[in-house]
């Protein structure tokens, strides 16, 4: 068994309104920053033991499918690194 960290990034699908990101962008602009868009995402770091990277990724993928992301509004990706 090898120790991995699987990083799951969950973000709103393109085109889904993100009022919190809009509010954050406006706050940055009030501070004098110039930017044309801001997107936010949730990042989950999962430490786990697995046979190999592929099975670590499969497990993290299932976690995203079943809980971490809501497929109606979210896209997600999984990246695995040895720890």
């Amino acid at each position, binding site marked *: 068994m090898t120790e991995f960290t699987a990083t799951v990034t969950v973000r709103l699908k393109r085109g*889904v309104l*993100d009022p919190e990101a809009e509010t954050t962008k406006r706050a940055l602009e009030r501070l004098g920053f110039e930017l044309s868009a801001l997107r936010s995402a949730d990042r989950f770091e999962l430490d786990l033991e697995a046979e190999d990277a592929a099975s670590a990724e499969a497990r993290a993928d299932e976690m995203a499918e079943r809980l971490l992301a809501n497929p*109606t509004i979210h896209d997600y990706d999984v990246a695995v690194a040895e720890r």
Partner: protein
Amino acid sequence: MTVSVVQFGGSNCDRDAVRALRHLGIDAERRWHEDGLPADPDGIVLPGGFSYGDYLRAGAMAARAPIMAEVREAAEAGVPVLGVCNGAQIGSESGLTPGAFTTNASARFQCEPVHLRVERADTPWTAAYDEGDTIEVPIAHGEGRFEIEADTHEELVDDDRVLFRYCDADGNVTDAANPNGSTDNVAGVLGERETVAVLMPHPERATLPDVATSTDGAGILDAFA
């Protein structure tokens, strides 16, 4: 008939729901989620609140609590299930109803009376109304914006499963009358069976004449009578 009002950690409209149901002569009891449902549940309410502190997403944790497997089973067997506010978020998160409820377009928590147009009158939830009726029921939510994928939305409309839409006092479904940016002004939808419904507005807060400015919500709870 005893309606089980499922109480999760962080539910806060469970007592209100029980009281409103009893006011209508419908027996109801709170049911702590860890205790499960009674053997043959007669009816189920998923009440409003902030279950699990809205961690991750509103309703996400409660939707995956073991009692929800029992709720889904009961729903499939035809037991009436109503999700209100956080209960609606739990219902959609658990797959009882399509779509998702997410952050209001205003990015604010909104607590205000709204008007709803009754889109179907031939369901248990709306038998007290006529199609096209306008009713006044309050909302109180930060994550009530109905989002749904385009193809699923099309199916929902084709199958006539939109139960309520936000409208103005005259029943016009307009952008101005949409409090939270919901797709297609959707405020409440039916599940695969007409005995399953979720809505963001609070019918139990529009039932008791002593505390509510409107009692228009009573007709929805009357489905359990």
